């Protein structure tokens, strides 16, 4: 299998889908002439022209709303938000129009829309540019919420998103764009939504993670392995729908669970996942579910404080040992 970076996995999928279907068009800030802030859309303006690769003004509400209208008329817009932080300017469009128009029209329209871009903490970007917003979107019925952790995830999930008929919140991560991994060369390779993957087998504890935190969880499990603790690691891939079946099955094998998220603790994805475990696997648990989360503060600028605000391997190791009563 060829090896691709996460960035190229995304970019080649855009190319394959744009070649396949003229209804696929791209919109976003500086995705064309500038080549994309993270170069995911590099060279695509030259390939497809300005009608299909639309450089927009800095108007998130406007261009996300316009993309919803395009999708209702049968196009398949893929919108880049420079980062998900800026999506808050378009929150009404996403929540009140994209997510709901199929429902309140009684099923008269499709909204085949993908909104993609980097989500999560950066490096010294401070409070407004460094946050994980998946819980906000995960709360909303009518949306799909996708968080690929690997190049293969990125390709397979983006293909499913583009070919679907509903709005997809596609959460990338800036720290992962350079990550390399094997990706199927099949131009129809796609991963279904709502199907998690067990990426590491283990009998002692289940660690549930997604996006960049998967890699932190894997690093932590290597170190735990050296201490004789075998962690099973579940890569969620999508948050909505959430593959509770896979999570519960894993907890059924290990009887302990640690859920990792980068975002703030309160009302976050880990709370939802932990609640699902309690509801569906209470009898299987030998210890309370542990949550590893970001600190409950706006992101600070100073590097030392910033490092305290996001989860690290040590935090996961500590949580795992707590579930094993090995403090």
């Amino acid at each position, binding site marked *: 299998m060829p090896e691709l970076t996460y960035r190229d996995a995304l970019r080649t999928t855009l190319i394959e889908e744009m070649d396949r279907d003229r209804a696929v068009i791209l919109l976003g800030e500086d995705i064309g002439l500038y080549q994309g802030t993270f170069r995911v859309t590099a060279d695509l303006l030259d390939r497809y022209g300005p009608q299909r690769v639309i450089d927009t003004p800095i108007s998130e509400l406007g261009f996300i709303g*316009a993309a919803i209208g395009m999708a209702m008329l049968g196009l398949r817009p893929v919108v880049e938000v420079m980062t998900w932080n800026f999506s808050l300017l378009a929150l*009404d469009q996403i929540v009140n*129009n994209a997510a709901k128009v*199929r429902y*309140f029209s009684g099923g008269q329209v499709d909204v085949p829309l993908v909104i993609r871009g980097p989500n999560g903490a950066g490096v010294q970007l401070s409070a407004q540019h460094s946050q994980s917003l998946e819980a906000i979107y995960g709360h909303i019925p009518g949306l799909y919420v996708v968080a690929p952790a690997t190049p293969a995830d990125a390709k397979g999930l983006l293909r499913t998103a583009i070919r679907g008929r509903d709005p997809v919140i596609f959460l990338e991560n800036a720290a992962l764009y350079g990550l390399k991994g094997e990706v199927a060369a099949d131009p129809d390779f796609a991963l279904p939504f709502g199907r998690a993957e067990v990426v590491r087998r283990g009998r002692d504890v289940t660690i549930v993670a997604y996006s960049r935190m998967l890699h932190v969880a894997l690093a932590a499990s290597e170190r735990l392995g050296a201490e004789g603790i075998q962690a099973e690691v579940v890569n969620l891939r999508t948050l909505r729908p959430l593959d509770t079946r896979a999570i519960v099955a894993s907890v059924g094998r290990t009887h302990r669970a640690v859920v990792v998220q980068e975002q703030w603790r309160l009302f976050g994805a880990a709370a939802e996942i932990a609640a699902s475990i309690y509801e569906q696997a209470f009898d299987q648990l030998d210890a309370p579910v542990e949550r590893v989360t970001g600190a409950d503060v706006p992101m600070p600028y100073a590097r030392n404080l910033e490092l305290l605000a996001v989860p690290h391997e040590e935090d996961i190791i500590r949580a795992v040992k707590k579930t094993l009563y090995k403090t």
Partner: protein
Amino acid sequence: MAEASRAQRRISPAAMDSVASPELQEARRWFAGMVLARHFEEEAERAFRRGKIGGYLHVYTGQEAVAAGWLAELRDDDIFFTAYRDHAHALLRGSPPGAVMAELFGKATGVAKGKGGSMHLFDVPRGFYGGYGIVGGHIPLATGAAYALRYTGTDRVCLCFLGDGAMNGGAFHEPANMAGLWGREGLCPIVYIVENNQYGMGTSVERASAVPDLASRFAAYAIEHERADGSDFLAVRRLARRTIERVRSTGRPYAVEMRTFRFAGHGAADLFQPYRSKDEIAQARHHDPIPILERQLREAGLLTEADVVRIHEEAAAAVAEAVRYAEESPEPPASDLDTDTHA
């Protein structure tokens, strides 16, 4: 003032010339449509008071010539979006009154299966893409939809009805700017129809817009624009024909501010209207588009008093039938609760 404007609306020989006879003949049909919409709204208000309609109810009485004049010139394959004062738009586009009333009653036979209600009427097969409840929130959708129409190589156009109150939010300004940009390439065949009924809920245009000449505000986005009287169906229709033809051929956006009057309160709960006087409401009724068109058609010899009586009776009967249909229709089944969230 009211007398003067009435005199101006007396149909002149020049106006007769500018509207070809078949159009005047056809105006009878639109007159009947406006009368139907009026009866429908009055009955909807009664049904609301009887507790048959829940939630919010925003009626269109007084503004009928705007929707009628524009929809009269819209081709069958064209599309339109509007906000939450949307019943007349659906009726005038041909949605069955029974299905519209059933939607207001929250019944399974409603145009949106009872899932949208008064503010979210939809009839996509007829090109009606909704019915939106957040002020201005549909303007970006309509703008993108217009782009899609041109991108796919058609000459279809999109009408975007919006209220005066919608012009003070970002959801107006951001897409208007993009429409101006896309229009340079002929990629945005949209008409923004500002239905200026003088009030955004209870706040007058003068109190809400630093520039009360709303049409002129489109100049900021290089969108050609004009203001016109929205009470005279024949004049609205002439403007609509000219504008739609131009937008269809150029792919460039155009904006029209239609001066119109909302006879009722903002919504069914706005009973006392403390923000405007009884005299002002009475004055507004001098601009009632239905008697204006009636007079024009009678003066042109196209309508007799007996015709008018019959048209009102037929409208009342159609609305009574719509209410009966809505009342007798079943509620949506419980199994409908979680359908239509995803494909």
